[in-house]
């Protein structure tokens, strides 16, 4: 099966308010898909409908071929879920929480206990296993929630803002866990509003006002905004722009310390960069350096949303 998640025409209305508006989305098996967007964009509502926690007003949802909400009980067996808000029992210990959910998934005896030990080890929670969940730090709570979501070795992990309100180093560590899981074949759908985190995703869906504004790999999205990759080329001496602009898409040009700094847009930098350099060379221009510029997703997002708002 190629797609883990197939959503089409998904709509949710709360009275007159359209929270999710005719959403189409596909997530491939084995990828990390990032769901980006500001608060209130409709990410949580979409996720809740996907998990059958909320009924959709319209549209179809298929998770690993199971249609939701009709086949929700099948979905639950293969899905690990982490809600936006910490939603485990604060008056149960770390171990008791895992044990309870493990039993609900039908694990018991040595199977259950070895799985819990494994997860405590993996998530570095061994030392606090007898601590009440309510007394854990934010980072530990988040790891415990991930542990509970993983207890039954799900094929699909659905994480709603797992890193909200957690310090950057802990966020980074959390992504290490996710990448590790993904390497083992777990498909991950994660929502976030931290743009830097989204760089970790294989593909990204940008959501705004209940609609999917853009979708693609981080690279694709960046290219789409500027029409290609941004590359910075530094040439010796003051070069007139006219010569180069004939065959290159120059975004801007400036002179610094007797050098010419160009920002040019290439359709695909990795393929076109060598031939471009040869061309410049053949024109007798001395290239000091040439390197792709890292555009942040934040810039992309702002650009896209602005365009979208203007269009609406």
């Amino acid at each position, binding site marked *: 099966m190629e797609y883990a998640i197939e959503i089409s025409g998904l709509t949710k209305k709360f009275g007159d308010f359209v929270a999710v508006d005719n959403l189409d989305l596909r997530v491939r098996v084995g990828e990390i898909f990032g769901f980006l967007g500001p608060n209130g964009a409709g990410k949580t509502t979409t996720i809740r409908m996907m998990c059958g926690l909320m009924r959709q007003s319209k549209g179809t949802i298929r998770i690993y071929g199971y249609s939701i909400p009709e086949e929700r009980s099948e979905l639950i067996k293969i899905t690990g879920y982490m809600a936006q808000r910490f939603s485990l029992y604060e008056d149960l210990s770390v171990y008791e929480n895992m044990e*309870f*959910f493990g039993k609900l998934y039908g694990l018991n005896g040595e199977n259950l206990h070895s799985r819990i030990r494994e997860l405590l080890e993996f998530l570095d929670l061994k030392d606090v296993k007898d601590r009440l969940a309510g007394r854990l730090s934010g980072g530990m709570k988040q790891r415990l929630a991930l542990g509970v979501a993983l207890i039954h070795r799900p094929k699909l992990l659905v994480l709603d803002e797992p890193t909200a309100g957690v310090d950057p180093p802990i966020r980074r560590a959390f992504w290490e866990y996710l990448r590790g899981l993904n390497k083992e074949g777990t498909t991950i759908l994660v929502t976030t509003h931290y743009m830097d985190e989204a760089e970790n995703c294989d593909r990204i869906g940008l959501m705004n006002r209940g609609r999917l504004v853009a979708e693609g790999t981080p690279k694709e999205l960046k290219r789409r905004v500027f029409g290609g990759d941004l590359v910075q080329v530094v040439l010796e001496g003051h070069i007139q722009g006219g010569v180069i602009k004939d065959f290159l898409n120059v975004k801007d040009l400036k002179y610094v310390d007797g050098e010419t700094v160009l920002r040019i847009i290439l359709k695909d930098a990795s393929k076109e960069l060598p031939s471009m350099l040869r061309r410049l060379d053949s024109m007798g221009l001395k290239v000091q350096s040439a390197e792709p510029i890292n555009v942040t997703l934040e810039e992309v997002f702002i650009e896209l949303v602005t365009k979208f708002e203007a269009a609406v």
Partner: protein
Amino acid sequence: MRITAVVVKELIQLKRDPRSLVMIAMIPLIVMLLFGVGYGGGMGKISIAVVNLDKGSLSWTVIDSIMKTPSVYVKAYANSIEEGRELVKDGTVSATVVIPEGFTQELMRGTSTQVLVIVDESITTISSTIRNAMLAVTYKFQQELVRSVQGSSVELIYSSVYGPKVTNLEAFTPLVIGIVLQLVPTSLISIAICKEKERGTFEQLIMSPISRYDIIFGKLLAFFIATIADMLITLMVAVWIFDVSVRGPLIDAMVVSTLFLLGSLGLGMLISVLSKNQLQANQAAIFIFIPALLFSGAFMPIDMLSPSARILANLTPMYYFVSAFREIMIKGFGLWQITWQVFALSVYMALMMVTAPLVLRLRVD
């Protein structure tokens, strides 16, 4: 088994919640002790019933004067002598005062008339208190009467009945046990579901392969295990500390109590499923408790109520419990002699058990 997982989890949580523990253990003790101290030791008023067959106004002067007597209080009004006698016989009241037909007429005519007092003679201190009280009432009444009408007099005649020898404490025991078995389990469990919704744990819970029956019956079972203590505490305090005698089989009293306890838990669960938050659930539990208390039949026999109130009383589970428990405790009946109450309580319990899981939705919207 999933349901065992829920039971274990709930019991651990209960164990760690001091407020619930206090509620389970202390409320029955406090209620029982307060009430035992208040009604124990022969203190308190003696309950009597009044049958007023007179159509004039002088009978009300007599009743008024009875009401003002400190040692007795009018618990019920019966419509006939037979009804009045029944009330004494089954221990509902200690005496019935019958004011005859034409009471006012005859007194105004200047002749004498007789007031019948049906007294329970099984406890001599009580019967003599009643005699003294009635003497005082008629004496005072005559003195006032002499001023307006010459020659008339009121004579007291007594009819002895041997009731079940019910002390005041015993008369109230079924009600107190009923109060504990409704109030504690219902309010305790009424937050069971909405607390999970409020804290967000419900969302995680229903993302696991749990059914609504696992959730509801797992919680019910856990709270049943916890609140069985309430039934035992109240019964033990009554029997051992206050020396209340259960004349029927103790096991039957426990069966009836268990039925009612399960019904109360089911009711609380239903409240929890329907409530939006814990505050709402608590208020609903108390709100339902008040009419249950009023229509329990413990303050006033149901037969004495107006027809519409009687219908309400017949729909009140507490009424069936108090009545069933009374019959076992005081009349020494067994379950087979109170099948109607047992049936009603079973229907109530079953209804409560079935409704809650049907109403629960495994969604978050």
